[in-house]
């Protein structure tokens, strides 16, 4: 086998030798293609696997941990929440609309193959700056991604209830599109991606196979360069209508007991679904590609096995139940093709009109894929960027900085984005996108699920370990702010090229930080996705773990949002700041610095805060709750005033720094991003009980002001720092993002 063939398949010489050993002979062309996709980073997790084992994945509520199509946790009433997050970064850069759309399609399939009805979508997006040298391209990418997400989710009829969008230079050449889907299934009827029962038929259902997406998984396992546009044919085209048919037909089939297992054909298509189902069931799978429905003529077995055409499913059903299964698919105008059967020999055997073209042990493809413990090296940049001399900053007027922060795309309202998403189809959404974590009620029960995704690449750049802890803490805090108890998490780990020891160091640090935070907050990880090689021309993104947390609300009617609810309520700040400015949006926006130590976090105190929120919400003591994150307590207070019809507040904050420079103290107090802080409001008279609950849990809490009037007035130690009409502030905040896109149109 010559080097050119290996390079084309993204295989090393050592990996090739390993293939020869596994087979006991030289592989055929089809076989080398199959190995190349299954052993790609995307499918095999070869660089990350040793570290992912460090994540806690068990807990009393966990019904399904990592390893299946999605994770599942028990939510009572005999139901399970099934959820997972996945990236579609590379395809979205090359072809934004289809890349994002097929990302949505893929994660939805992962959820309904578990037997769950998908009820909510979220997406975490990262782009470069909307202005500046790459602004035009970035706006085009963002516009395409948003339309793609909407185009798919809106059509299939699953509400997009939340997520986040942030902007920073390192994402200009490598945007992030992470998509999370949440579904609900009967807890005792979760469906697995398993092939078992010798002689059971293997069915192929859905769209026909074309030449699109061949080697998509390999593409997602390489860096970008200026020739990336040539890879456009490796991006697939989505068909939400086909997926809707598959969704309904599969859920209908799952009502019967004719199904053994099912898996969608995502990355690595037919190859991955056949060998993974076989490996999970300890069985062999034999198929003949002549039975695979094909969109194009003259396709080779190699192409058929590696195609990533969308909206296709592989099913194993009970022998003797074929007619029943076929009838259900026919109802939905789908054709179920019997392409093979389960065998006893543990092999993936691919035939072409009866002639064997590939014969590989499933275990060799799945369980025995290479695992690398890649070298790590602490990056040299860290010492440089962690040093921050606040005294050297020229501090301006807080009132002006406040307005600038509200207009910062990362902080500004994302209404321009989520107005393009159907946020309420299926009539479960009780807290809409942009108000809080997404909250969906579970019809037929009293309960609701809150869900949030979070991750701050800037923090992780400064300190990947602590940044990952902060990501989990913030996602969990956001669902706690809705009144929920966090019960499970899913992670999408977006990093650069793992073959560079500095990147690998970031990865290992982040995973270990995440693991520590999961243990401390008692939130298991039930699944997720790793996206490596997020680099263009050698420049990596910020290390960006995005964490999705699902929380359970016992009484849906007690759900909280961020908006102040009534005139004359008491405003309480839970937690306390320490004047940290490192890694803050303020420091980046106003002083153009990404430096310093990212905020510290005390995980025990974080846990106490979250427990306090859930308890106070359940007891009906709170009227609103909102996490302090980008832009600090000042921006959080402003956001509490938004969407209230202009309700104002008068607040006075305790200074968080004892520095000499008066303006610096104000800036740190107002815009610092210390973790574990939440602005809540309560009826006058209830605040002593809130403070008492906080005291018993060791959470610092203080009444800082009262709602009322139409202006937001924030003082620091009695000196007014911000005094702004809510209507004016809200106009800045709600119009900022749209302005960038109006400019495009002009």
């Amino acid at each position, binding site marked *: 086998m010559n080097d050119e063939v290996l390079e084309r398949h993204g295989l090393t010489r050592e990996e090739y030798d390993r293939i020869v050993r596994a087979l006991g002979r030289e592989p055929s062309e089809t076989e080398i293609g199959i190995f190349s996709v299954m052993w790609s980073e995307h499918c095999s997790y070869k660089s990350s696997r040793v570290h992912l084992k460090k994540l806690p994945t068990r807990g009393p509520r966990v019904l399904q941990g990592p390893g299946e199509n999605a994770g599942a946790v028990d939510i009572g009433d005999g139901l399970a929440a099934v959820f997972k997050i996945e990236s579609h970064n590379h395809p979205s850069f090359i072809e934004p609309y289809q890349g994002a759309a097929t990302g949505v399609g893929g994660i939805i399939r992962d959820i309904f193959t578990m037997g769950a009805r998908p009820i909510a979508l979220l997406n975490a997006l990262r782009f470069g700056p909307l202005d500046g040298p790459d602004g035009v391209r970035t706006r085009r990418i963002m516009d395409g991604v948003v339309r793609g997400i909407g185009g798919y989710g809106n059509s299939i009829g699953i509400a997009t209830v939340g997520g986040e969008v942030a902007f920073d230079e390192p994402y200009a050449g490598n945007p992030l599109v992470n998509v999370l889907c949440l579904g609900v299934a009967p807890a005792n009827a979760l469906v697995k991606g398993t092939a078992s029962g010798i002689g059971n038929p293997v069915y192929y259902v859905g769209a026909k196979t074309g030449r699109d997406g061949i080697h998509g998984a390999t593409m997602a396992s390489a860096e970008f360069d200026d020739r990336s546009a040539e890879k456009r044919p490796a991006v697939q085209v989505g068909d939400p209508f086909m997926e*809707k048919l598959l969704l309904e037909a599969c859920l209908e089939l799952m009502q019967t007991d004719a199904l053994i297992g099912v898996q969608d054909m995502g990355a690595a298509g037919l190859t991955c679904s056949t060998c993974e189902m076989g490996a999970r069931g300890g069985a062999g799978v034999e198929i003949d590609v002549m039975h695979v429905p094909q969109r194009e003529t003259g396709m080779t077995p190699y192409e058929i096995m590696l195609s990533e055409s969308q909206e296709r499913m592989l099913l194993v059903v009970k022998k003797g139940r074929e007619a029943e299964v076929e009838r259900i698919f026919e109802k939905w105008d789908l054709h179920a093709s019997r392409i093979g059967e389960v065998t006893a020999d543990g092999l993936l055997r691919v035939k072409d009109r009866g002639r064997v073209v590939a014969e590989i042990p499933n275990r060799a493809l799945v369980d025995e894929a290479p695992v690398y413990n890649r070298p790590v090296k602490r990056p040299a940049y860290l010492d440089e960027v962690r040093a921050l001399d606040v005294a050297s900053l020229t501090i301006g007027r807080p009132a002006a900085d406040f307005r600038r922060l509200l207009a910062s795309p990362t902080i500004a309202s994302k209404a321009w984005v989520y107005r393009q998403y159907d946020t309420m189809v299926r*009539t479960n*959404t009780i807290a809409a996108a942009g108000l809080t974590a997404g909250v969906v*009620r579970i019809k037929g029960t009293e309960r609701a699920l809150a869900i949030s995704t979070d991750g701050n690449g800037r923090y992780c750049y400064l300190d990947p370990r602590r940044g990952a802890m902060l990501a989990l803490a913030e996602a969990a805090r956001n669902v706690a702010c809705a009144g929920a108890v966090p019960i499970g998490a899913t992670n999408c780990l977006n990093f650069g090229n793992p073959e560079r020891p500095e990147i690998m160091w970031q990865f290992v640090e982040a995973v270990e930080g995440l693991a520590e935070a999961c243990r401390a907050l008692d939130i298991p990880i039930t699944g997720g996705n790793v996206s490596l090689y997020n680099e263009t021309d050698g420049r990596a993104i910020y290390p960006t773990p995005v964490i999705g947390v699902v929380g359970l609300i016992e009484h849906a009617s007690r759900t909280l949002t961020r908006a102040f609810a009534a005139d004359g309520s008491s405003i309480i700040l839970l937690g306390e700041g320490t004047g940290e400015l490192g890694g803050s949006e303020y420091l980046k926006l106003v002083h153009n610095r990404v430096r310093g130590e990212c905020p510290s976090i005390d995980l025990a105190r974080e846990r106490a805060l979250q427990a306090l929120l859930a308890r106070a919400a359940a007891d009906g003591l709170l009227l609103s709750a909102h996490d302090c994150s980008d832009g600090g307590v000042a921006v959080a207070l402003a956001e509490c005033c938004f969407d209230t019809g202009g309700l104002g507040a008068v607040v006075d904050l305790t200074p968080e720094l004892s520095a000499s420079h008066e303006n610096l103290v104000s800036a740190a107090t107002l815009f610092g991003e210390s973790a574990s802080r939440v602005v809540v409001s309560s009826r006058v008279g209830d605040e002593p009980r809130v403070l008492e609950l906080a005291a018993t849990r060791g959470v610092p809490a203080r009444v800082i002001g009262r709602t009322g009037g139409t202006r937001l007035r924030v003082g620091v130690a009695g000196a007014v720092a911000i005094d702004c009409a809510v209507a004016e502030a809200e106009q800045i905040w709600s119009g900022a993002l749209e302005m960038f896109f109006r400019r495009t149109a002009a």
Partner: protein
Amino acid sequence: MKFAVVVFPGSNCDDDSYHAAKHVLGQEAEFIWHKETSLKGADVVILPGGFAHGDYLRTGAIARFSPIMGAVAEFAKRGGPVLGICNGFQILLEAGFLPGAMLRNRDLKFHCEHVIVRVEQTETPFTLRAAKGQRLRIPIAHGEGNYFAPADVVQQLESSGRVVFRYCDERGDVTERANPNGAVNGIAGICNEARNVVGLMPHPERACEGALGSADGLILFESAVAAMAQEGVMRTA
């Protein structure tokens, strides 16, 4: 009282209409698969939102060929109340129950948000419990809801009182700003000459419970129940 909710393969608001009729209103409701040919004794027919057959050609363009549409036409001809919501409205246009067509939204973007519509015509089975000029806060969720018809058709709709809902602002004024999609004359919903077939772009079924942000849409369903009760009285009389 029995509501029939027609299910096309790409319907995605079928469950929501069913939920509103059955669980919020406490009426009987039944899904009718689009390949069926009978409405099974329904009193009210709902064509729900979604993207009936993928809508890759034109919204609602293929649904008119679904087998159930013959029965829906027959039912409408006999004066049975038919409500087309969003994609259901688009289907009513394509199938010729109602005049006009849908263009893409003025800004070429999908819009999902709460809007306010003014009730213009109360003499339909879906608005008889509303007051003329009453403002309803109901969400929209569509990319092609920019209602269009030739000037003479619009003129005829207006003069014969067949505009049922119009987008308006909080004070009830019909303004360009309050119009989310560019629809001619701010038209959000219309009815046929006999006034028993109503189509509208907003989703009343999504605004039937306070927990979802508004219960203003319930009045359409309550009106249908009241209309049937009246008719029942007439039938027995």
